[in-house]
């Protein structure tokens, strides 16, 4: 692929970075990223990946845009209220960068469709709002060996980690099972500062771009925790669990299943 004059301008600040260059930018253009969720996290992740010129961005989300989303879900607007979030985000990302092919998948991800949905993508981004889906995505990515960049937010705190199956721990190494329903409050119950998913989503997008260009150190084996009130970033080591039910030596989870859902609209 040769750059057009327009692309030379659009990506000039990438191309002159020695770590990116024309080669890195071409990798970005060839990359296929699938995001689960077009909510608080998916909006900034997709926005920055589209700006960066990621060739194919798939968005899996079956929800519709509501007014209460607009405090933090920056790809949507009053003009797209009631529209499927996947379509609303597609419209926004393509307006930002027509180089990008945005695939809107208006389905709820589950144990039956997840493997087929993610199979053709290079990197998966978890921007979901509930534990059952988070674990399902983790398990599916481990089974297919897909790099996964996962993020979570609540109130004034957010977390990010990168999971590289076969090269470091997975989400179940950290917490083997999801917490019982009701133990961790949802964003609906507990609230979230609107800008927080912007911080965490931007970190996730950064991890994705680093993986694509193959530069820097991925955030694997560590959970990065951001505390907005205390203005603290700290990293907690996640040891790989050799007994992990999905990525351990003798996995007990060999098939995907759906757990009862507990909801939280991020």
């Amino acid at each position, binding site marked *: 692929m040769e*750059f057009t004059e327009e692309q*030379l*301008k659009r990506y*000039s*600040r990438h*191309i*002159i970075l*020695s770590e990116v*260059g*024309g*080669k890195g930018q071409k990798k970005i253009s060839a990359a296929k990223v699938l995001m689960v969720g077009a909510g608080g996290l998916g909006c900034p992740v997709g926005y920055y990946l589209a700006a960066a010129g990621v060739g194919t961005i798939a968005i899996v989300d079956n929800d519709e845009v509501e007014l209460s989303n607009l405090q933090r879900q920056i790809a949507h607007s009053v003009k797209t209220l009631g529209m499927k979030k996947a379509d609303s985000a597609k419209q926004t990302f393509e307006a930002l960068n027509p180089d990008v092919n945005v695939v809107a998948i208006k389905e709820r991800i589950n144990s039956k469709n997840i493997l087929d949905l993610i199979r053709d993508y290079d990197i998966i981004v978890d921007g979901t709002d509930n534990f059952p889906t988070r674990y399902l995505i983790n398990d599916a990515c481990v089974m297919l060996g897909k790099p996964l960049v996962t993020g979570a937010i609540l109130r004034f705190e957010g977390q990010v980690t990168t999971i590289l199956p076969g090269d470091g721990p997975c989400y179940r190494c950290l917490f083997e099972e999801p917490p019982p329903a009701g133990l961790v409050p949802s964003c609906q119950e507990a609230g979230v500062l609107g800008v927080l998913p912007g911080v965490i989503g931007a970190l996730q997008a950064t991890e994705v771009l680093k993986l694509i260009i193959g530069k820097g150190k991925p955030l694997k084996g560590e959970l990065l925790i951001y505390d907005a009130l205390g203005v603290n970033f700290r990293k907690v080591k996640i040891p790989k669990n050799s007994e992990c039910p999905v990525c351990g030596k003798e996995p007990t989870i060999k098939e995907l299943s759906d757990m009862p859902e507990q909801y939280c609209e991020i």
Partner: protein
Amino acid sequence: MNDINIKADRKLDIRGVVCPYTLVKSKLAVEDLELGQVLEIILDYPEAADSIPKAMLNYGNSVLKVEKISPKEWIILVRKEVED
């Protein structure tokens, strides 16, 4: 900076191109070189005559020559020293 024996492997004419595209085009041309090969850049944007050699050194390449060949034109010779 003795250039008597230096022969460029590739030439890049970016007269008429302004910053930062002078650097964008020069960077891309250097990426296409093999290690040890030399690129000759001819340009007429005054700031670039100063900034491109600096940028090339920062990337880890060698700048073999910066020569003003006319009141508004410069030639820069860059040798690729590092893989991208």
